[in-house]
């Protein structure tokens, strides 16, 4: 019995990492109604960007997150302004194809520079420390940090959406972009901000993922898949819904792996498919 409880707890904590993958995707979908196919590959890019100061200057990986997130924020904004805004229009396939193309370019580029060797970030003792909570269950310190950061960033993003004028503009654009234009909201700019926030969040997720396991230039698609599953389970375009979707996905994976080693990821897919089948709008559907 307790070992199942243990699996659930580990799953909830894993869900924190998936939330960091997914919330950015949820925001860009919510605001632009476009799925960024390159989401996972940009997450991997952020991890490789962090690799440089960590290797070169022995910067702690957690500290490397700050400049990389800032850089990714700026990069996201300009990518949207310069390239992706041009693809937004009546044809919903255009942005999909554009981000798909970018993903391939990025993946091959990383392959050229870093080859297929798997990389990871070392955080020493902190990576393996855990706190026993009784009954043979121990809670990992690092997964708890990730979970706490995920909650903190979700709170921060929802405050941004409710308390700042750019946040309210993002929600208005999400509701009705045409009418938002009548109010003077420049969609080109709000879309840029949406991708910027998304990219800053995946920078955090990318580094944490690299601490938890390893990454290669090929890691992008599975990160996109987990993010996408979390968003769909939670309900497209809702922040806390996405967070809950990520937790449900994490629990499905760890409990699945408990049932039989090797079917964890499959169990996540099955929960995703079940939600898609029985409640296609997601469990907590709402707009931003």
């Amino acid at each position, binding site marked *: 019995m307790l070992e199942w409880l243990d699996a659930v707890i580990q799953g909830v904590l894993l869900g924190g990492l998936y939330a960091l993958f997914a919330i950015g995707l949820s925001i860009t979908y919510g605001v632009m109604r476009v799925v960024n196919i390159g989401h996972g590959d940009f997450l991997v890019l952020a991890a490789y960007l962090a690799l440089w100061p960590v290797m070169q200057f022995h910067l702690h990986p957690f500290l490397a997150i700050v400049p990389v997130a800032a850089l990714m924020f700026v990069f996201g904004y300009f990518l949207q302004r310069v390239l992706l805004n041009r693809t937004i229009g009546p044809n919903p396939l255009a942005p999909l194809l554009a981000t798909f193309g970018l993903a391939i370019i990025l993946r091959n580029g990383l392959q050229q520079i870093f080859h297929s060797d798997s990389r990871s970030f070392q955080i020493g003792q902190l990576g393996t420390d855990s706190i026993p909570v009784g009954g043979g269950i121990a809670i990992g310190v690092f997964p708890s940090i990730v979970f706490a950061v995920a909650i903190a960033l979700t709170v921060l993003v929802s405050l941004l959406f409710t308390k700042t004028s750019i946040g309210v503009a993002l929600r208005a654009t999400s509701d009705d972009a*045409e009418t938002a234009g009548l109010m*003077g909201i420049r969609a080109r700019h709000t879309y840029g901000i949406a991708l910027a926030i998304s990219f800053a969040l995946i920078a955090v997720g990318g580094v944490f993922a690299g601490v938890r396991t390893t990454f290669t230039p090929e890691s992008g698609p599975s990160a996109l898949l987990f993010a996408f599953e979390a968003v769909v389970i939670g309900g497209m375009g809702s922040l806390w819904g996405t967070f809950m979707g990520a937790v449900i996905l994490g629990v499905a994976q760890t409990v699945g792996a408990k049932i039989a080693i090797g079917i964890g990821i499959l169990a996540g897919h099955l929960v995703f498919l079940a939600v898609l089948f029985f409640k296609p709008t997601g469990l907590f559907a709402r707009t931003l």
Partner: protein
Amino acid sequence: MLNVRNLVARYGQFQALFGIDVDVAKGGMVALIGANGAGKSTFLKSVAGQIPSKTGAIRFNDVDIGALPAEEVVRRGVSMVPEGRRLFRSLTVEENLKVGAFAGRSGRWTLQAIYALFPALEERRSNSAMALSGGQQQMVAIGRALMSNPDLLLCDELSLGLSPAVVKDIYTILPRIRAEGVSIVVVEQDIDTALRVADQVYCFMHGRVTLKGAPADLTKEQVSAAYFGIEGH
């Protein structure tokens, strides 16, 4: 202040407006009438920048705004209450109003001024805009448009889906807005209301203006002929 000349508008292959001329004087109140599909909304959307139009077709305060998109037109002082209100559904009443101020034009229309104009909204400021009655939603839509401190307010079918009593209330507000120096264009299906409130009326049919003039100068027969396309006399 608004001078429209030979305005043409299309939706793809379909031509919706065929050379419209409309003038709105400073402080004026103009009503556009016409049957369903006559092109009234298309005209307002063209002026507001939601539908592209040719350079030179639309001049506002002697500036050519024909080629500008909506988010720039509102910065120049043209604001729209769209057909069907189009409130932001995940925003509260107050957030809807605040979004209206996004164009960054200062002036007398602040949150306080809107609440003074529509006291019913102040009590419901934290409610979702969607939880309000149709009449109150229309007040939010008008208030939101005023928050940009426009020189010209475009109102598309304020009476849509509202009871006659509520429509009457809404129309008693317009003179108060006008008294603050805002020029107004209303699209109105109800001919009597249009003739009562406006000082100039334009009748649209099949994308053309079939009649224009001051209500006092127009006979009922002229108006119905222009409205329904029936030959008068």
